[in-house]
């Protein structure tokens, strides 16, 4: 039986450039600490077992799954969430803008995780090949877009042609068909 008298532990870390002090149970995940204790609800939980990537945040610049970390592991760490990647003036950063330009999202639930993953990926590999892009995106699941706009967005953010092509259009009439 769990003991709810477990003393909470103090963690000091930096989140989006702000020093934070958290008092958490040792079992509290980083994701829950961010979402509930710091009200940074942009980090989403899609599976809570480390597969879907919706909860991806940067820890000391590396993309990690915040559902697989305990908050107490973050003592002294520098955490960046999707909120921390967004310019304060309400504009979009180049990765975010590329997602908007290329219809890289529909319901938007997986999107913060993709934004954070892509940010880390392009920092490591600013000139990726198509195959590297798809491999890098393989750690994040999206159920709405079929990844079409997401792949294009990463190419745009990397300064490459997106490969988007104009669709063929036909306006038939019955006469023309017969």
């Amino acid at each position, binding site marked *: 039986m769990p003991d709810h008298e477990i003393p909470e532990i103090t963690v000091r870390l930096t989140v989006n450039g702000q020093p934070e002090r958290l008092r958490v149970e040792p079992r509290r995940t980083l994701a829950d600490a961010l979402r509930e204790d710091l009200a940074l609800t942009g980090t989403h939980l899609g599976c809570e077992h480390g597969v879907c990537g919706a909860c991806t945040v940067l820890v000391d610049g590396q993309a990690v799954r915040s559902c697989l970390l305990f908050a107490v592991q973050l003592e002294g760490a520098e955490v960046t969430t999707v909120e921390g990647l967004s310019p304060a003036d309400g504009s979009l950063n180049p990765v975010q803008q590329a997602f908007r330009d290329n*219809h890289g999202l529909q319901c938007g639930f997986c999107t913060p995780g993709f934004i954070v993953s892509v940010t880390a990926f392009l920092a490591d590999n600013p000139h990726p090949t198509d195959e590297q892009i798809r491999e890098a995106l393989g750690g994040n699941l999206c159920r709405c877009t079929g990844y079409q706009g997401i792949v294009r967005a990463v190419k745009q953010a990397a300064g490459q042609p997106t490969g988007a092509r104009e669709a063929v259009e036909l306006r038939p009439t019955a006469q023309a068909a017969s």
Partner: protein
Amino acid sequence: MTAVEAGGAARFVGQSVKRREDPRLITGRGRYVDDVTMPRQLYAAFVRSPIARGSLSAVDTDAARALPGVVAVLTGADVNPNGHAYWMSMLGPDAPAPPMRALAENDVRYVGEPIAIVIAESRYIAEDGADLVDFDVEPEQAIVTMDQALASAERVHPEHDSNLSNEIAAEPDPELDALFANAAHVVDETFHQHRYICVPMECRGIIASWDPWRQQMEIVSATQTAHEVRASAARLLDIPEDHIHSVMGDVGGSFGQKMFPMREEFTVLIAAKMLGRAIKWTEDRAENLIAGGHAREESMDVSFALDADGRILAARTHHRENVGAYPNLGDGMNASSSLVMFPGPYHMQRVASSAQGLYTNTMGRCAYRGPWMLETVAREQMVDVVAQRLGIDPLEFRRRNVITLDELPFTTATEQVYETVSPAETLEQAAELIRYDEFRALQATARDEGRYLGLGLALYIEPQYGFGILGTEGATIRVEPSGKVNVYMSSGSHGQSLETTALQVVADELGVPMDDISFTQGDTAATPYGPGTGGSRSAALISGAAMAAAQQMKERIIAVGAHLLEAAPGDVDLDGGVVSVKGDPSTGVPLAQIAAVAYLDTDQLPPDIAPGLEVSARYKSPFIMFSNACHAVTVEVDVATGEVKLLRYVVSEDCGNMINPMVVEGQIAGGVAQGIGGVFYEHFEYDEDGNPLTTTFLDYHLPTAVEIPDFEYGHVITPSPTPGGYKGMGEGGAMCSPPALINAVRDALSPFHATITRQPLTPDAILQAIDAGGA
């Protein structure tokens, strides 16, 4: 598709206007249900059955109740007496349905069935409490498959006479019998579809808060329809609808799963009313996979009668659906849609269909993007099977049987009337885009080299229902005293981009820049009633409502503007947010000035002009509407490993006039990716005792960017007769992709005489099919 900002545009419909939804969602500022916290909010966790079938006893909640932080532990005996009705507005109270209950009582009927709800100060404590609830289940042999449901003397629901959730018998049809008796060819085949499921990236969730003093229930939920949540909560709790305020915020996908509240939501509502507190339940992924509603497990026997030239004369179908124990809506069957849509894009003189829904001790069926889609999945496979047996190329076979534009309006064998569909044109466009003849030559060369390429085609007609509860949507438009515009729609957009596309329609119809218009939906206190976003209806119905309200508003604005301009209403127009005399833009009166008069200086208005600028309007749609498409895909199968590589994927579709081509293509893409997942990767599996085997994303495999190729699109545009000429198309990608993909694999493996009638087409399954073919 080149996306454009709304800002500078003169006209919006037809352009890939970038989405209004995006900035908040991309920056982590969306507000999904789990992001909302109510005052003194409690958290719920469910205790669920680990056994598929058995008697339930000795539910002991004492240890859980004793846990500090646990506020309440409620069982079926506590909750169920407070659940008054479980039916949905779409079907009404008398539709065939399982004996519903919020929590299991006395027995359990599927793994994951909720037995108790634990309510605590935090989610962690609620889950600790759930672990402490003890109970006994005396297991009985579970009924897992459809064959078992038919053969077993045991009943999934002892209250019912059989395991049939419902049955549709084929009408006697001597004319059809004669067509079969005299046919040059008769071909029979059975097609199976495995259980694969919605899996929105956001699981289900609800916050319900009952205020006993105001007698008011506040609900925030992840839903496709705030209004059905309200209506069903009113019936469930037996409280008046006007004492319930239901809202949806951003919703992280659904694909049908969140169309109707399920047992967990009902239990939370009952518990909130019992406790007089706010209770949040956030489903976790294991719960979502095991107990969030399932789909697709079904089979169809198909017989075609054909003439000597390979023209389809008649068809017989028998559709069987595994509806689980507690399907989400009524009898859980989709056969009434599947049998009506079976003729699809082809000439058939007579069709006879029958169907059975079968209860099993598995998770109940819910809607999933094109729930009736087996008609397309089975028919399009049948077309390829028949073409192969008759030695006719599948493109040529379709050309011989497809309905052409000059035959419209066309009445199908199931009495559906197509007015504006273009199956032949999409077939030709897809064939051209995939470079059909070139591929056939390449395929032949490759086979000589021991490489196995395949091409799959599939055609379909996608219905959008406009009858019953689905027949109307509403819009309210308010021009505020500042001249800015608020639009309130009855929609429940949860990824479909209606916040953008509905405003494109309003902006054009009204003559006001899109940037001056805001959008509200999914709030029963603010927005008109609507059945929610689903069934591919929004392009036609939401646009219809938006246009009707915008036209009325435009008349109101023009009346005030004309008065201020001292002109006749017929001599002025509203464009770019300015009313001016036609042909003389220098006379313009901006909307802000008109609105100021309409609200703040009403004595300037003559008596025949009403003060204020507020209108509400409704659109009533036709009974049923249709769009169509053709999918063409090429694959290479590695016959040593069984691996399938997708080479190219082409969709040619006709959704009439496109409001926003970017959004249209996005809807297609998402659906096709779900089809790829379903055919190759996704399979919700049970063992023989009804134990779920695929309870995490490590076992239930969703496709990633690695598995999904680039898609190519063609648009055939035949405007519908509905306002704007728009047609719905949201489900088609998921309906038509499975048969196209399966046909491509079948084509690739034709040298091996492989029979492909079951999926998923895993490498193992493909190797087995090659072996069994014996070539």
